[in-house]
């Protein structure tokens, strides 16, 4: 179970919430409100005051690397290194079999793994980044617009893969602008709003 306590992101009220195993939390709110910053804070990629627990263990009780191998952030605009996608996906860990299976589950020919990343389309890269994020089976998956740049058919395949992760008992936090997708995947919803904008007379 993922538990967030008094997480203080600038411009937002302190956040406290829980997401259980096998549950998906949708994080909603206008652009620029801090949805990405919330995901990054949970992954401990930004220095944000507050506490985040995974099964009772706080993120700062363990080395950062160990935390992020369990609590995985997948960026909306994923970065790549090395020549091919295979290079960075294999560095992430996970068996070759699983990597190639997920690649074809997302509608991609596994041969694409050996093509230079610079020759791939945005949508192909986004799907391969999803493979990379899931390859070593992290416990918590923080997805920042995982289907934002995908066509309908590819988005449906990606959604299917995410649903499978939830069914397998993993915890998912999802930032998405696709209302239908949130309806289909999310068990819980968190609406982020600027307290100054809504509350002031």
């Amino acid at each position: 179970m993922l538990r967030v306590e008094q997480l203080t992101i600038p411009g937002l009220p302190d956040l406290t919430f829980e997401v259980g195993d096998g549950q998906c939390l949708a994080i909603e709110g206008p652009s620029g409100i801090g949805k990405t910053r919330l995901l990054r804070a949970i992954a401990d990629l930004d220095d944000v005051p507050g506490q985040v627990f995974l099964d009772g263990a706080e993120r700062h009780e363990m080395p950062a690397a160990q935390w992020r191998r369990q609590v995985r952030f997948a960026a909306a605009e994923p970065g790549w290194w090395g020549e091919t996608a295979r290079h960075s996906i294999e560095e992430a860990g996970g068996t070759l079999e699983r990597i190639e299976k997920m690649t074809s589950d997302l509608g991609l020919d596994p041969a694409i793994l050996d093509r230079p990343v610079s020759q791939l389309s945005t949508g192909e890269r986004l799907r391969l980044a999803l493979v990379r994020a899931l390859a070593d089976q992290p416990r918590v998956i923080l997805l920042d617009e995982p289907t934002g740049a995908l066509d309908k058919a590819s988005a449906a395949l990606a959604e299917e893969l995410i649903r499978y992760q939830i069914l397998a008992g993993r915890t998912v936090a999802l930032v998405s602008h696709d209302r239908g997708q949130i309806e289909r995947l999310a068990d819980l919803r968190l609406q982020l709003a600027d307290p100054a904008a809504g509350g002031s007379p």
Partner: protein
Amino acid sequence: MSSYVSLSPADLALASILILVNAGVSMAFRLGLERTLLLTTLRMVVQLLLIGLVLRWIFQQTSPLWTLLLASIMIAAAGREAITRQERRIAGWSSYGLGTGTLLMVGTFATIFAVGGVISPDPWYAPRYVLPILGMVLGNSLTGIALSLDTLTSTAWRERAAIEARLALGQPRLMALRETTRRALKTGMTPILNAMAASGIVSLPGMMTGQILAGVDPVEATKYQVLIMFLIAGSTALGVLLATFGGVLLITDDRHRLRLDRLVTKEKAPAG
């Protein structure tokens, strides 16, 4: 040394005509550099004259304290030069601390190595040996350090998505920044490798030229130049290594986060 020809102020005035060529280029192409050129030329002449006078006085004293004082000023100035012109530098005093600290270490190391182990002047702190060696080591190391830190911060900025993707996968900071570090090290080492490869064929190093003009036998001058090259190469490599890894630690934190918020761009940098 009968071959040594002393230069009169009139000789130097004659040579200064050459600067007019620079001024001519600037005016012909409207580069707007005339003012800078004039100021820079004056600054160079004054700086060199002053240091000539200071050195003459300090050489006469042969006092370890005065030598140490001048050495400290040189190191502090070099530390500032190494950082000031960076496109994106690490904010606050830490970048100057890194530059100056690195130069202090390599300058001290190379100079003591040279006067203690190789040249052995009497006394060992003789300013005539210590200060020029320190100066050459600092001048070259600072170029290497400045280049490697500049490459480190600009590459980390450009590749931030890839670096953060690696950190998000649970890679430690040294691994996530491995290619960035390697590029910074390589860029910092390149000038000294070029200088070594080109020396003697393309260029006669300034120190050697100076000694030959002052009447020293070319082979003797060469021996000193080779010593200086070794000192410079070793200290540059050490300086580039220390500065790059120090820089990696400064643009990340102990929770293995990329801290590009600690960089300031040149325009936004506060004065001083």
